[in-house]
């Protein structure tokens, strides 16, 4: 059940330039969150920024802690970066659907930048469920950025294949190069892909999976005014015989890659 909760800041951790982890005491929402669920956070009590901002749940603890990872891209996220311990913010959540973690025996998890948040939560859940093999492929602009984003996987016993735009860590190039190199070993019957990152990356992964016949789910981002399926603003174009428009906050944020008309998401 979704709730509005006053969340108290426990700590805010700088993970590098413009990149933060915010740890909140938010027991009601943390107690219910699932992989790829998201929260709407009010970043100001004033009228600018006006609307709440959506963030994926990164991690929760049994003590009621809820963590998000965020990159500062505008006023709302800049406000969040200035929060200090014991400050309070309004959160609504958990919202949206989630990754289907029971669909396959083996998963390749693909993350770009802060898109690692829902992917990490999925990895933790898969490990907890047991019996499923996981490979993580993660990319970012630089190693300085990618390193802290992927540090959580090793303690789970999960190896990461890394790619950076500048070649400072792992493969020099795109995370989709890593996927292409692996394709020969991937069994479409056993393996599924879960993916979150920038739209061009997800579109490329979707294209590769479609060609190779691999089951693939993506977690999308669009502009959201409400997060609770009231404004009908968070639309993406659907594809084929499916619905003309899909609503990311209600039908998503997770979709089968084949449901999305990727061309319109990229323009």
């Amino acid at each position, binding site marked *: 059940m979704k709730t509005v909760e006053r969340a108290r800041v426990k700590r805010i951790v700088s993970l590098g330039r413009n990149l933060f982890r915010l740890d909140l005491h938010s027991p009601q929402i943390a107690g219910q969150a699932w992989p790829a669920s998201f929260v709407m956070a009010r970043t100001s009590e004033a009228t600018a920024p006006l609307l709440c901002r959506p963030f994926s749940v990164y991690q929760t603890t049994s003590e009621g802690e809820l963590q998000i990872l965020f990159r500062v891209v505008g006023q709302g996220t800049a406000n969040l970066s200035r929060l200090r311990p014991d400050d309070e913010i309004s959160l609504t959540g958990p919202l949206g659907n989630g990754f289907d973690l029971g669909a396959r025996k083996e998963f390749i998890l693909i993350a770009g930048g802060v898109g690692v948040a829902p992917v990490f939560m999925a990895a933790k859940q898969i490990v907890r469920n047991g019996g499923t093999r996981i490979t993580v492929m993660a990319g970012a602009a630089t190693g300085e950025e990618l390193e802290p984003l992927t540090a959580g996987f090793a303690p789970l016993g999960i190896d990461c294949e890394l790619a950076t735009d500048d070649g400072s860590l792992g493969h020099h190039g795109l995370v989709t190069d890593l996927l292409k190199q692996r394709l020969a070993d991937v069994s479409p019957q056993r393996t599924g892909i879960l993916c979150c990152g920038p739209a061009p990356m997800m579109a490329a992964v979707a294209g590769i999976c479609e060609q190779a016949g691999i089951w693939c789910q993506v977690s999308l981002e669009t502009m959201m005014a*409400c997060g*609770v399926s009231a404004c009908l603003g968070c639309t993406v174009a659907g594809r084929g015989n499916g619905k003309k428009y899909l609503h990311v906050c209600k039908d998503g944020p997770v979709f089968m890659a084949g449901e999305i008309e990727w061309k319109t998401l990229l323009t």
Partner: protein
Amino acid sequence: MENAPDLKTAIAGMTLRNPVMTASGTFGYGEEFAELTNLHRLGAIVTKGISLAPRPGNPPPRVVETASGLLNAIGLENVGVQAFIDAKLPFLKNCGTRVIANILGDRVEEYGELCAILSGVEGVDAIEVNISCPNVKQGGIAFGTDPEAVAAVTKTCKKNSKLPIIIKLSPNVTDITVTARAAEEAGADAISLINTITAMAIDAEKRRPRLANVIGGLSGPAIKPVALRMVWQAAAAVRIPVIGIGGIMTADDALEFIIAGAAAVQVGTASFVNPRAAEEIAAGISAYLERHGLDSVAALRGSLRL
């Protein structure tokens, strides 16, 4: 409480628990907010706009934030009247508050048909008629800006329905008193205003409009002073009740509209920012009345000291 002020509000032949309703298109069909706020503490829920046939709405992006405002071009996406009755109304019937169905059409006859259909089902307490949404190319715009069209739609709605008819005016006119009077003279039971103000936003880097539809409707705190002025003018021009809408975020905002002459208010964009906004505003109005020794909302209405 012994001396708790009476928030009951009589409007267009209905009695509301309090004068605070949710605005169309900002509260879904009520169910979306059931877990987040106490629906039975609202004066009424106004539904998302309903048309005869389902509408898919505009291509994305459909929303963008502007300075203290929200610009939208949803394009009146809705499930259509039949799905509303089958899938949405059963919840609303039992939600513990009044239900006002907001309707839209692109022909006068469509408004009439919708009124006839909605009058024949149980669970709808009143109809609010959107004659003003600026988003759809062949949509409401022509009705809301032309007093003759306003009158024609109002008459058709009245003829086809026994329910109270609230005409929701467009702010995209030179003189709001003209369309307000046109609605009153044609038999409207109440008017509500304002709908969103036609507006646009541009990404200078890309030299592209921020909305796929180019033009959208502005809502939120940015439009409140304009809305307040129009409600003040309309309330002075007509005798039927006026429902004030536009940028109401707090109880103080709502009180300003009531002091300007509104009999009731609607809370829109604020519900996105705080899902409990409408409920909290109703409580805030009650606290204000108590603090000022007023025993009802009616005692405050139109009490602006000039």
